């Protein structure tokens, strides 16, 4: 990840010339987050769609209830 590239992307998103003196530091932070998150290599299915989170909460609410 090129700090200069993401600096330019950020400027494009702001639509404003915002100083980014911390671009390298922030790029390293993103690297750390990617590494830390230990992403699953499997391709997500529709069952993993973010809009299923409420349904996932309802399912998780029942986990272990029967064993009580």
């Amino acid at each position, binding site marked *: 990840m090129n700090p200069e590239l993401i600096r330019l992307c950020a400027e494009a998103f702001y639509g404003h010339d915002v100083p980014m003196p911390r671009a390298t530091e922030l790029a390293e*932070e993103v690297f*750390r987050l990617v590494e830390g998150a230990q*992403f699953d290599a499997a391709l997500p299915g529709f069952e993993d769609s*973010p809009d299923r*989170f*409420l349904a*996932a*909460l309802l399912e998780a609410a029942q986990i*272990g209830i029967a064993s009580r």
Partner: protein
Amino acid sequence: MNDELSAMTLAQVSQGLEDGEFSSVEITSACLERIEAFGPQLNCFVEVTADAAMAQATLADDQLRGGHRKGALHGIPLAEKDMFVRVGRRSSMGSKLGTKFMPTVTATVLRSLDAVGAISVGRLHMTEFAAGPTGQNEYLGSCRNPWNADHISGGSSSGSGSAVAARMVYGSIGSDTGGSIRLPAGMCGVVGLKPTHGLVSRHGGMPRCWSLDVFGPIARTALDCALLLEAIEGVDPDDPATYAPHTSVRASQLGGSLKGIRVGLPRNCFLSDAAPEIVHALEEALAALRELGCTVVPVDLPATAPIYALTQIVNKAEAAALHAKWIGTYYDDYGLSARSRIEAGFHIPAPLYLWALAARPKVLRAFAEAVFTRVDALMLPLLTEPVPSIAEVDMTASADVPAVINRITRCTRWVSYLGLPAIAAPCGFSDGQLPISFQLLGRPYAEQLLLDLVHQYQSVTAWHRRVPPLIARQEVCP
């Protein structure tokens, strides 16, 4: 008499009002006197609306005398984090930019409290744009911990924790994105409940992060929190996250048998490197729960560090999206702390953010299967070290602050990604006489159980009855 009134809990003054032992005007006056005496030294209020509060209290007394009681909160003085808007009234959102935004709606939580006759005595300090767990704010100044004013109150619902602990109000509503209800409540020695994602409408509240934000109560006891939650939870067409069907909290049903309830204690993380005084306090809390009939079960938690990283990706990306326009236009009006947190989100690629969101149902399922097939609630420390001093989190004086922030949030932030309910409650005091608190996590929508565990814990312990040793300024400097 006024000190006696302000020392009572929300449930106690509610009962006293119903029984006619005192009036809403009397308890509101008691709160306002305490705010006047101690508010400035704690810097916990952004604005005190004394005249409006007294008018509301007079009206409430008339209604109560006329037999028109609207519920347990009728005539009770509360205050809210300064990020819940009302039509035509500006809220600071902890920022100097708050003056630029005139609300055209009233927050659903405020409308809910209005509907049951609660009184607002003012709006409370918060971290700038709710971005940060310490209670520091370059614009408003630091909110202070009532147990020791040199220490942080916690944040971002900083004023809520500080004012409730200092007995200035009987309860408050805060927001939690990664610990912002639990941390100030626990650091100030009161109870804070982060509800399940979607239990309480966020409409009309300042968003910090769409996917992680929840609103919930801070009060002195679990029973008080239950009374507040009863009033604000429920379906709201303006917040589709509230559409999931669930069993509502009932304060009147607290106090049932806890026999057979399994409380988990993680054996592979958090406690192993927590300060000895914190480990001791949690062990004592578990012993109390055992006495109440609970079974304590050691559990191995799934690794929480990756969940923490996923939380950060979602939090930072959404905060950057929310603030993109304003931070581009008003860059210099953002404080260093808020700006540096928001700025990081512009560097997170869209696929990374979407991966983090897509992983959420799967990560929740895996966590629930690993934990909730073995236990009904999970006990964790709120912090693994004593409450930091204000100097320790001063970004202008120390380069170590990001590490301190990560330590403060390591037990709370990842819970928000999972969307689970969590409650923080006091269970001791450190050598420095600052509160130590535990955190209990439950299955989604298990607020009733979490509140009951703390309610019954508080029935056999007295940590929540301790009052901060505040000294009015005129007593110090005659």
